[in-house]
């Protein structure tokens, strides 16, 4: 090899070396360049620029550092790097809409982000440092972020009670119960109630085979002329709790045949005294009088009726019992009489009180229901079914179990079925790979999956046994929220310890009152020490509030205390003894410790004191803006015209001092009254009495006017 060749080679080598060095350098540079150009550094720089232009830039940039920021809470297993980009999250001054969304402050919430991190509530991937990976589902990161619309689901993973702050979650949980989801599915923290759908042991004595056929085919009662249900301006308002099952003609025939054969003799004779019938049968006003009685007894406090005015159908009445618009075409006459006399004889878990009916009232109301609450077209389209064949009955009995009917409905002698559907306790924590989407053309997300499963189960799984539910968009959102909150066991043991359990108070008095309490179902509407309904006033301290004589008169003939309310206490037709038993029990057991016994004589204060109270009532505090006395005043609070006959002075005084200590969440504002003012107002209010007893009141009025 010549020197020239050697030179050439070394030049080539040098060139190759130079090129490879450059390539190596370039390769080495890739990583730092990629790092400098990474998404999160971009956000860091953007925030620095943004903050510098703000007047409080010093505070905004106090914690600024160019690297990755993270919230680390070892005991909860939280490592959240979200704050790397969301840098203004804790800055109160960055709340307005003009701030770019990524830097905006977090709205005020009861939990501090530094203690909990972000992912505990928002889900998503806290460790990710790229926008997509942090918020969405990618190949390697499975947990997408929860839209804020459903964020209350996260509250529900720890809060098993009913926080006032999460109305959507609470509503969803109520729906899980109301729609009988626990009938087929196991849902952690929700116990199976004793009764889900009605007991069908003797349904054949209640309704006809044709009616059962119609109900199974299309479980709705109120429809307009187009066959659609629009009540209160809402599409599915009138929907009953029974969902729609997809049954074939043969299945419909078989099930209706089987159910119509279930008959039992009623426990009590369903006959009305023939003398009453003879006296009322021919009278032209029987039905109209029955209607009057129906209204007087305030059946509509629990039951609703559809009323169509100006082409718009509205449901008027309560939601505790079933809607009754067409019940006369549904149930047979004997069953109705037996039911009204003693609902618990047919259905032991019924919430309906046992009224003390007179024979006349029972006859009139029954006639009214069967004449007016009817629809001759209810069973149009139902074929003539004839009497059930043994073959149909056999198949029907089989289907009753196969279709899951026995998960919600009890038939004595036929075992009820639990855990018919899959366990949903961990549904909210499922990842996409754990879900089966089948042929459904929906986005592959947990949210879309849950929605499809509820609204159209067969779209996800053609063989689904689950029936179809019609839900309003709001209800669907609430139900989805509650299901997303079913995230199974706690992520860490520390999280498990933080769980707030649901409180389940029960109030079951014994003795004579206990019997009446069961008979009249007081706790369906009233609350006793945290247990019971919220429709009517809380009676936990009723013994401190109401005078015994008033209570007895009220129980015998309930009058409304709040004139704007359309729902009122029904008339139970109580006897004197029953009313006295209830009043005595209240007096003895339902007392508040906040009342001061020494206030008991405030009612006997001199008229001057009452006059001062009147001044305070009308001028200084203007109580008339919410309360009515006589014919003038507002109607937010109860009518006080005869409060001197109604309430005890010690209750009024204690109430004026601190209403919320007597009734939690009372709407009455807590004023800063002096002791003298409390006494004067109590004296004035106690002077407001009915009839001749109101001499003191008149004197007070005179004294008040004189001033």
């Amino acid at each position, binding site marked *: 090899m010549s020197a020239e060749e050697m030179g050439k080679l070394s030049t080539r080598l040098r060139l190759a070396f130079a090129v490879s060095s450059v390539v190596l350098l370039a390769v080495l540079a890739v990583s730092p360049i990629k790092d400098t150009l990474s998404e999160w550094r971009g956000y860091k720089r953007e925030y620095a620029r943004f903050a510098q232009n703000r*007047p409080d830039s010093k505070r905004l940039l106090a914690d600024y550092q160019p690297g990755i920021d993270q919230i680390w809470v070892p005991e909860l297993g939280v490592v959240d790097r979200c704050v790397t980009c969301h840098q203004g999250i804790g800055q109160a001054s960055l709340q307005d809409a003009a701030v770019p969304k990524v830097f905006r402050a977090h709205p005020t*919430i009861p939990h501090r982000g530094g203690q909990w991190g972000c992912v505990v509530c928002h889900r998503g991937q806290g460790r990710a440092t790229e926008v997509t990976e942090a918020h969405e589902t990618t190949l390697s990161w499975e947990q997408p972020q929860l839209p*804020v619309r459903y964020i209350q689901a996260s509250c529900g993973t720890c809060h098993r009670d009913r926080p006032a*702050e999460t109305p959507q979650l609470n509503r969803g949980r109520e729906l899980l119960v109301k729609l009988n989801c626990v009938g087929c599915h196991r849902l952690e923290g929700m116990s199976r109630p004793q009764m889900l759908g009605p007991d069908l042991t003797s349904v054949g004595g209640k309704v006809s085979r044709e009616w059962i056929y119609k109900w199974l085919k299309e479980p709705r009662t109120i429809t307009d002329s187009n066959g659609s249900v629009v009540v209160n301006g809402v599409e599915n308002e009138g929907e009953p709790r029974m969902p729609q099952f997809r049954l074939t003609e043969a299945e419909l025939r078989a099930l209706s045949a089987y159910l119509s054969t279930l008959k039992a003799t009623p426990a009590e004779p369903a006959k009305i005294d023939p003398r009453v019938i003879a006296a009322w049968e021919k009278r032209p006003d029987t039905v109209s009088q029955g209607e009057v009685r129906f209204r007087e007894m305030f059946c509509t406090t629990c039951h609703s009726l559809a009323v169509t005015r100006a082409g718009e159908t509205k449901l008027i009445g309560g939601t505790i019992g079933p809607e009754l618009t067409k019940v006369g075409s549904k149930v047979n006459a004997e069953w109705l009489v037996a039911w009204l006399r003693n609902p618990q004889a047919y259905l032991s878990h019924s919430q309906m009180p046992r009224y003390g009916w007179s024979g006349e009232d029972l006859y009139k109301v029954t006639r009214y229901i069967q004449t007016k609450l009817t629809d001759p077209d209810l069973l149009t389209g139902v074929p003539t079914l004839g009497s059930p064949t043994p073959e149909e009955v056999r198949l029907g009995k089989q289907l009753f179990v196969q279709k899951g009917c026995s998960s919600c409905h009890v038939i004595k002698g036929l075992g009820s079925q639990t855990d018919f559907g899959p366990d949903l306790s961990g549904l909210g924590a499922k990842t996409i790979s754990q879900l089966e989407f089948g042929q459904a053309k929906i986005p592959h997300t947990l949210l879309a999956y849950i929605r499809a499963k509820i609204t159209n189960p067969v779209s996800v799984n053609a063989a689904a046994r689950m029936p179809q539910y019609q839900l309003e968009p709001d209800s669907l959102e609430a139900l989805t929220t509650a299901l997303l909150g079913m995230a199974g066991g706690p992520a860490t043991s520390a999280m498990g310890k933080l769980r707030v359990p649901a409180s389940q108070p029960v109030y079951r008095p014994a003795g004579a009152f206990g019997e009446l309490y069961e008979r009249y179902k007081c706790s369906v509407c009233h609350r006793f020490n945290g247990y019971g309904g919220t429709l009517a006033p809380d009676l936990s301290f009723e013994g401190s509030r109401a005078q015994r004589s008033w209570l007895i008169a009220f129980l015998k003939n309930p009058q409304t205390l709040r004139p*704007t309310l359309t729902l009122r206490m029904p008339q139970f037709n109580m006897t004197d003894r029953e009313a006295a038993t209830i009043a005595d029990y209240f007096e003895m057991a339902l007392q508040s410790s906040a009342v001061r016994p020494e206030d008991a004589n405030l009612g006997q204060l001199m008229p001057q004191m009452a006059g001062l109270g009147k001044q305070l009532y009308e001028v200084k505090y*203007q109580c008339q803006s*919410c309360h009515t006395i006589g014919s003038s005043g*507002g*109607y937010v609070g109860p009518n006080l015209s005869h409060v001197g006959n109604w309430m005890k002075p010690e209750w009024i005084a204690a109430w004026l001092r601190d209403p919320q200590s007597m009734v939690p969440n009372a709407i009455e*504002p807590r004023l800063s009254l002096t002791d003298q003012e409390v006494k004067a107002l109590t004296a004035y209010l106690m002077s407001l009495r009915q009839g001749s007893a109101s001499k003191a009141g008149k004197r007070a009025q005179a004294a008040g006017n004189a001033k």
Partner: protein
Amino acid sequence: MSRRFILLLLFSCALVLTSCNRQRSAQADPLSGAYDVEADWNDPQHRIALNYEQAQGKRVFYTYCVWCHADSTPAGPSNRSSLNPAPALANDGSVLNPLSDDRLRNMIGLGGSAMGKSAMMPPWGRTLSQEEVQSVIAFLRAIAQPPYTPPARPGPRYSVK
């Protein structure tokens, strides 16, 4: 030739850049980011997104305030018509927007008579917590029609300059 090459290079760079800078899929429903929603009182079709604080304010409002400060209430008729002077509608921006948060806080907390207005507005300061009052104000601001715009930030009033 080289020009074409550069163009191609530029194009592929642009392609790479756009694919890198993939935008997050825009969320179709603007309310998916809302903790709760309230229908605009003047236009029920228009639904207003509420954040956590505003949603809590909504709850407090519908418990204590709605009876006199709205024309329809959960119980049906409103008490507003029986009052003189009639209380302001809670969404009436023309009345409420000019009032500062501090003024509203005092109105709610101390009541009408303390603020030189009608004593029919009771003081709520001992019934509601400060947070609850603040949340009600946040709710009122959210539902105001015409919409409420917060006052311009005070600016560097206290800076060295």
